[in-house]
């Protein structure tokens, strides 16, 4: 046992487990963040289509990513609307938690409605019949630069190392 905090005993194993879990979560969050910052949606959908992913799945992915992209501004709008109606969004933790529930319901409903409408709008622009981008231009982008090779190699070694440690070889 390392120490006692507010009556709770703190062990080295527990502390290490906590740190490990927290760092994994941070790593996961940063990976997702890095993916969104470094990969424009345009590039992603074109790439997935070129790789043969059916357009319907690309549409679903596109709507989901768009929803995530719009989430902060949507939450802010609903937050303001609830505040204007007198919801105690600036009060204590308990009141804020209660207010969060009043935000969740319109957030989910409006997001579903908007996703359906956006999906319809994309269908109405012929998205589901969209030919893979390679076939639109007749050119296949086969460029592989040094940066891409380094990225793939690094990713490979990180994954291999994780598997190695996980298996305790």
């Amino acid at each position, binding site marked *: 046992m390392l120490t006692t905090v507010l009556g709770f005993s703190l062990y080295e194993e527990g502390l290490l487990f906590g740190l490990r879990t927290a760092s994994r979560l941070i790593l996961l969050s940063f990976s997702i963040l890095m993916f969104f910052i470094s990969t*424009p*949606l*345009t590039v992603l*959908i074109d790439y997935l289509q070129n790789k043969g992913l059916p357009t319907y799945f690309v549409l679903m992915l*596109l709507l989901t990513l*768009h929803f995530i*992209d719009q989430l902060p501004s949507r939450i802010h709008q609903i937050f303001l609307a609830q505040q204007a109606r007198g919801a105690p969004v600036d009060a204590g933790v308990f009141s804020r938690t209660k207010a969060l529930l009043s935000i969740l319901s319109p957030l989910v409903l409006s997001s579903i409605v*908007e996703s359906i*409408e*956006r999906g*319809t*709008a*994309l*269908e*109405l*622009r*012929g*998205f*589901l*019949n*969209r*030919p893979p*981008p390679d*076939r*639109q*231009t007749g050119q296949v982008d086969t460029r592989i630069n040094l940066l891409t090779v380094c990225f793939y190699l690094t990713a490979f070694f990180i994954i291999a190392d994780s598997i190695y440690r996980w298996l305790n070889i």
Partner: protein
Amino acid sequence: MAQHLTIRDFSLQYSASDPKALSSLSMDVTAGSCCAIIGPTGAGKSTLLHCLAGTMRRHHPESVASGQIQIGDLAFTGLPNQILFPVAGLVLQDPYVQISGVRDTVFEEVLFTLENLGTIPQDPQKEILSLLQRLGIDHLVDRKPTSLSGGETQRVALATILIAQPPVLLLDEPTTALDSKAQEKLRSILFSLRGKTTTLLTDTLIDYALGVADQIFLLDHGAIIFHGDPRTLLSQVHNFSSTFPAEGWLGAQSLLSPLEEPSGHMQLVAKALGLR
């Protein structure tokens, strides 16, 4: 090239147990003309446009339809099973959802439609810029499509459909998010489309349609209660005062009164109908 649109005895139920959302509609819209479908909320205007665009069967497979729809040489009994774009292009009521969000500039957003169709021309730059110029939004060509005002977004949404040169253009309540200046701009765009595209637009207000449409259909509870040209509607507008909110035909009333001087949009309507 504009196509003739014919609807014969068309009825629709969202499911067999539901009441009719559209009831025995018949319409003839001449190729290249502009037709307005006016009705209060829930009258069936958007439903009709979705039937014509081909989205109804996909989104409501349990819907039951009878009658005929014909666009040019394409004829359907009941509902079309596939989306009819680019034969019929539908611009939705909310222009913001029409923006894909996957392209960084207005130019790329419009090009996205051509990519979907697999029909990118030799010089897309020239074609897209020419369209944007016609719509008065060529200065927005490099702007981010999600950062535009309501009126600008409406015109970009229109451009994303018009670039495919649909023979039939369907506009679902295009004036909803527009101020009077933007409505005026839309009016001139609709005039410029005459002869090139058959246009069907819906609205809840009578006044706007009087100035833009060649013929007007009034729709209530899924049925047509009036069909005629703007001048005929104007002479009978009081008959429909219980169906439409007063603010929807205040302008029309001003045209009927010899003492009132029409203002704004209604001045143009009066001029077009030869009333002043």
